């Protein structure tokens, strides 16, 4: 990969779904070797951004460069070669349900390498040890809790020693212990393996403890960027509302609706 200081560069990106604009003129640079958080209210397209970076969906216009290559221009073969250098942790883990934990973590190795079984086993054991689940090696995904599934998925995501690790909402639905474990893992893996981590989340407090850089998305564009400390004192209503978790502010709590009292009294409710 190209050794520029940014591993992902997005320029003037526009993306819409069925006529509804998700991103308009979005530009952002994700630096190499750091933990970058992408935050924003629900529905701002954070997960869509990850799908654009990994070319699971195509932008309407603009460019996405990953490791120096314009990912839109890549052939399928080159895209797969790039993806082999990326690991992605899906919201629900997305483990293959018909395989054991061991087979799940070994899956990318079996598909992409000719390593002997002994070496595969050693690699899988090392990665499972890193996420604390070496003892769960023979369990099926249905026997794992939500937090464990995500840790196994994390082991699978790092088994090919990727350069970029992408986390899609890694804390959703986790108890505080699992959340703390995942948080520490994000930082530890980033620093010990020399990765670049991109974390999509809306858990402000949690992510602030591990992120080096935060992008705050709203209304289809970046409204603020900086370190977590900088964002906490950012002079903008929307940033203050999001970081402080306030109901009142530029981001409305209510979905657009007719007048409340009018509807209660049946004036608009007759339709």
């Amino acid at each position, binding site marked *: 990969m190209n050794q520029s200081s940014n591993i992902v560069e997005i320029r003037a990106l526009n993306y819409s779904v069925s006529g509804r604009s998700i991103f308009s003129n979005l530009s952002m640079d994700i630096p190499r070797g750091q933990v970058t958080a992408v935050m924003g209210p629900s529905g701002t397209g954070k997960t869509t951004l990850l799908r654009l970076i990994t070319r699971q969906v195509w932008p309407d216009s603009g460019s996405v460069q990953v490791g120096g290559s314009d990912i839109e221009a890549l052939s399928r073969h080159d895209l*797969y070669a790039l993806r082999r250098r990326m690991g992605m942790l899906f919201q*629900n883990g997305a483990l293959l349900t018909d395989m054991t934990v061991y087979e799940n973590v070994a899956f*990318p190795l079996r598909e992409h390498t000719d390593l002997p079984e002994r070496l595969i086993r050693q690699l899988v054991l090392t990665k499972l040890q890193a996420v604390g689940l070496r003892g769960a090696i023979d369990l099926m995904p249905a026997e794992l809790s939500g937090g464990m599934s995500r840790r196994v998925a994390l082991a699978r995501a790092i088994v090919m020693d990727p350069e970029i690790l992408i986390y899609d909402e890694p804390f959703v639905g986790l108890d505080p212990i699992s959340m703390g474990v995942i948080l520490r893992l994000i930082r530890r893996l980033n620093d010990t393996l020399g990765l670049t981590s991109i974390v999509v989340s809306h858990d402000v407090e949690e992510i602030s403890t591990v992120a080096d850089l935060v992008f705050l998305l709203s209304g289809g564009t970046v409204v603020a960027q900086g370190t977590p400390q900088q964002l906490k004192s950012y002079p903008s209503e929307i940033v203050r509302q999001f970081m402080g978790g306030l109901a009142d502010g530029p981001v409305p709590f209510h979905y657009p609706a007719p007048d409340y009292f009018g509807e209660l009294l049946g004036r608009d409710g007759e339709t």
Partner: protein
Amino acid sequence: MKVLKDPWVSLIASLKSLGDMARFLLRLVLGSPRALLRFELVSEQIYNAGALSLVIIMLSGLFVGMVLGLQGFQLLQRFGSEEALGTATAIGLVKELGPVVTALLFAGRAGTALASEIGLMRATDQLSAMEMMAVDPIQHVVVPRFLGGVIAMPLLAAIFSMIGIYGGQLIGVQIMHVDAGSFWSQMRASVGLRDISEGIVKSLIFGVACSLIAVYEGYYAEPTAEGVGRATTRTVVTSAVMTLFLDYLITAMFL
């Protein structure tokens, strides 16, 4: 205007989905040689679609054969030609009922399982996860399942017909006392290679059609519980209609 517009829109949509399905089939066919090299993936699917459907196929074959024996005997007796029961049962099963009923049962048993399995893999991001691991889900998940169905169908149809003939013999020879020698020798004399190949061609084509519909519906299912449910229903309905339609076409071609 709406009355005119709606059928037009649905006609265009149907043609489009037919075109999409043809392109999907092309991808599956192109991916098949590579999938056959990793035969362990395909053999697992032959087991899932074939071996696990054996009980239902054998039971249904037995009952259909027994009904044929009973009905055939009643009818042939009127003309004093009960000895032709073997021929009637065998021709009916090998050319028609074997492939068709097997395809309908396959759609209900294996087709729904395929569609819901692939649909759920889509809904739980397993297919996206494979994409992100640089593994083509079509090659790894869809093609082996498609091939498994295509290979299993003719085998199941053959077993169905075999058990069916035994069921016909059970009623005709054992219970209705048709002469066993006539039953078997007339069957041997009148059922030709052409009849058997018609059955094989039918079950092969039904195998392609039913497996294609199941994997296509599963792969493009809306990733929700409701979407997977709808895909499963569509698999059964489309497979059944398509089987009967193709059956007519192939029968006409073999005349």
